[in-house]
């Protein structure tokens, strides 16, 4: 019997396939095909097709089924938030992450220790998904997409009033909102409805498909129409489409549309200009700097492992709170394991 106590990094570590949980022999959001995977949410940088056994929320499974061309898995298991699953020696359960419909934090319990993997998360309110829940833990593995203090997301309600104001400025220009098809598009729709915009909204086919899943899960997004129902001269109607190259996609067919982009990256003006946004809106489904730091403060875990974004600043700030912090990529990472 070793005298040294077990540490979390002795059983959770980074392998080439992704984050590996040894006593359960499974991965969380693996980047390569594996036998057993727990998936936090349906975005393609987290959910990949072809794994053997997959566990995720029902909404995430529905989203994966719809978005993947090939068979997404061999077997799957739906987990409700809070429902326990025993995988090998590890107890696994999911907690809401507030990122998109079905998004979850993965809670791992083993040998009296608890490690929480945040996946992508946010703490701003969002009626299209369950709100983030704090799960006390020994190690918090946090995302850091906006891990620099310049990212402080404003009130999304005000951003949407700016969009609606554009319709007054340009009564004859259609408004094309570029938003990712899963999550951001539905959030924009919900924000527009919350701002009492009740006209039909025209959405690209890929977005319409995802909205259908949201509707099945009880999220009503109002009167949505397919793009082919747009009239030739759509006035100042609002159109939602995934980002495309200038002149391509729906934007290429419209005369003089106003291009709106909704993203946390729009905080920094060079990003807005680089992407050709005429009206950049700062609306994000990721935690901003203040949310990242205050979540760590609220949880006060033994240790924080930082991944998925800019790591250095968040590690520094966490250490200043008196909490140990490291880059996840440095955890149990043997030679050649870096990706």
């Amino acid at each position, binding site marked *: 019997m070793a005298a040294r106590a077990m540490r979390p990094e002795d059983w959770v570590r980074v392998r080439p396939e992704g984050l590996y949980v040894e006593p359960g022999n499974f991965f969380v959001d693996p980047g390569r095909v594996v036998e057993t995977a727990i998936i936090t949410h349906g975005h393609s940088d987290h959910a990949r097709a072809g794994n053997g056994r997959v566990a995720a929320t029902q909404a995430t499974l529905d989203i994966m089924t719809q978005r993947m061309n090939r068979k997404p898995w061999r077997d799957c298991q739906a987990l409700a938030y809070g429902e326990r699953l025993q995988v090998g020696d590890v107890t696994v359960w999911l907690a809401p992450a507030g990122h998109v419909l079905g998004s979850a934090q993965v809670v791992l319990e083993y040998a009296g220790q608890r490690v929480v993997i945040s996946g992508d998360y946010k703490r701003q309110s969002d009626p299209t998904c369950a709100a983030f829940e704090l799960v006390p833990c020994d190690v918090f593995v946090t995302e850091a997409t906006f891990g*620099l*203090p*310049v*990212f*402080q997301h*404003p009130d999304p309600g005000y951003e949407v009033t*700016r969009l609606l*104001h554009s319709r*007054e*400025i*340009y009564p004859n220009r259609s408004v094309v909102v570029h938003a990712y098809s899963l999550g951001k598009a539905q959030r924009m729709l919900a924000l527009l409805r919350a701002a009492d915009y009740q006209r039909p909204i025209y959405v690209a086919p890929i977005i319409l498909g995802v909205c259908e899943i949201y509707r099945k899960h009880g999220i009503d997004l109002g009167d949505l129409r397919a793009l082919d129902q747009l009239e030739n001269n759509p006035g100042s109607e609002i159109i939602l489409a995934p980002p495309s190259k200038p002149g391509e996609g729906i934007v290429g067919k419209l005369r003089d549309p106003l291009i709106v982009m909704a993203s946390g990256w729009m*905080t*920094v*003006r*060079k990003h*807005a*200009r*680089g992407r050709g*946004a*005429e*009206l*950049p809106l700062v609306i994000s489904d990721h935690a901003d700097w203040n949310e990242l730091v205050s979540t760590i403060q609220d949880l006060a875990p033994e240790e924080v492992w930082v991944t998925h974004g800019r790591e*250095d*600043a968040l590690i*520094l*700030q966490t250490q200043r709170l008196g909490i140990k912090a490291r880059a996840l990529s440095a955890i149990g990472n043997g030679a050649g394991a870096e990706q």
Partner: protein
Amino acid sequence: MRAHADLVDRLSHAPDKSYRHAILVDYFRHAPSPDCGWVAAVLTGEIGLPRVGPAALKRLAAERLDETLFTWSRDYVGDLGETIALLWPGLPGGDLCIADVVQELIEAEKSTLSALVANCLDKLDTRERWAFLRLVTGGPRVPVSALEVKQALAEFGGTDTSAVEEVWHSLTPPYEPLFAWLGGRGEKPRTGGLPVFHPPVAARPIEESDLNLIESSEYFAEWKWDGARVQLVGLNGARRVFSREGDDITAAHSELSALILEGTVLDGELLASGEVRLFDILVAEARDLRPEPYDNRRSRLQSHLEADPVLKLSLSPLLAYTTVDDLKSYRSRASEYGAIGIMVKPRHVPWSPREDWLAWNIDDRRTSAVLLYCERMRNGTLELTLGRLRGNALAPVGRVRADLPEDEMSKLHDWISENRTDRFGPVQQVRPDLVCEVAFSAVDTATRRKAGLVLRNPKLLRILWDMPADAVMDISELTGLAR
């Protein structure tokens, strides 16, 4: 300051003039007085605000922001003011109004300016802080001209631009009677007939399709002079010199203003020699001539100049022609006459706000040159001195205004701050490593200059970020063009 921040933000992303127009009209429709008046004054450059330089900004950042996080953020964002706007721990919802902010800035003492800036930043949200810092750091300039602002005011008030000009020049910021009138809350203010800018006939570049229409019975041809368009106004006992955009530049041209006769508004081109070549008269003997066709106005101008000959003011002559080929040959010889092309003007139409005159410029030549010095001008623009190698030293060959898209400007500002080697007042010397492409119309011999020549009408086209400075040819290529 939310509406102001939103305005500046929208303007900075608007791809062209017609959108900027719509944004401005909308702003004036919604903004309360006196906010709108102060904003109009700032946008037109009518009032100068004290400037906070990068050194003072960095001090503020050092006092209030975490050093490491600030440095990392600045590296990421690029622009200093933008970084501070993003990081500053403001308390949004302080509802500062732009009118108060502008007035406090105007009255600020140099010694208290930094404290005032910090105090304002505390009360603003991110986008407001960005717009506010742009105001006090002087750059990058909001891309609207004074004329565009007045055109927007005219549309907002349902009147024409010259009526706005007239009232504008009779008032001082924040122009409350003007906004009361435009907003339908008051009478048109009596102007007391102060000398005001009268928008001149505008010109546009000639197009292939125009050539078929040109006939000497319908169009006058004149030289397009190599200078700056000016308007000389003498009305109600006062004299003013205005730029093309309607900026009052009398102070810089006092000898010229002394030559203006009472009761006239003259339109012409100011040459480097100080001489003005006149081509239009909009008011004579206090009578508005704008409803008259151009050939009548030109004959009035001619008799006006003959009645009162002044050496510095001369009539821009007509160019006799019968065919378009004649015009082409004038154009090809323009530089021999100190002109940069020819102008073609419809004879029988009265003044209108349309672009009625056609400019047919000599094709610009292009070359590249190395950035030597940068100077921040009082109005916030940046002037660049460019040089070419003569022997083994770089010699200045021309000066251009850095008028680039906003992202290029911020890239340039960053480059300058990283490559500054020396500083003399507002002039900064930089490492001679950055290559600029410029257009120019001709090369003039200039024996007293180190280069022996100077580019005429140089215009900055773009920065060739990837071109190494030693790939720029030496000056002999230009010497061959000098005359």
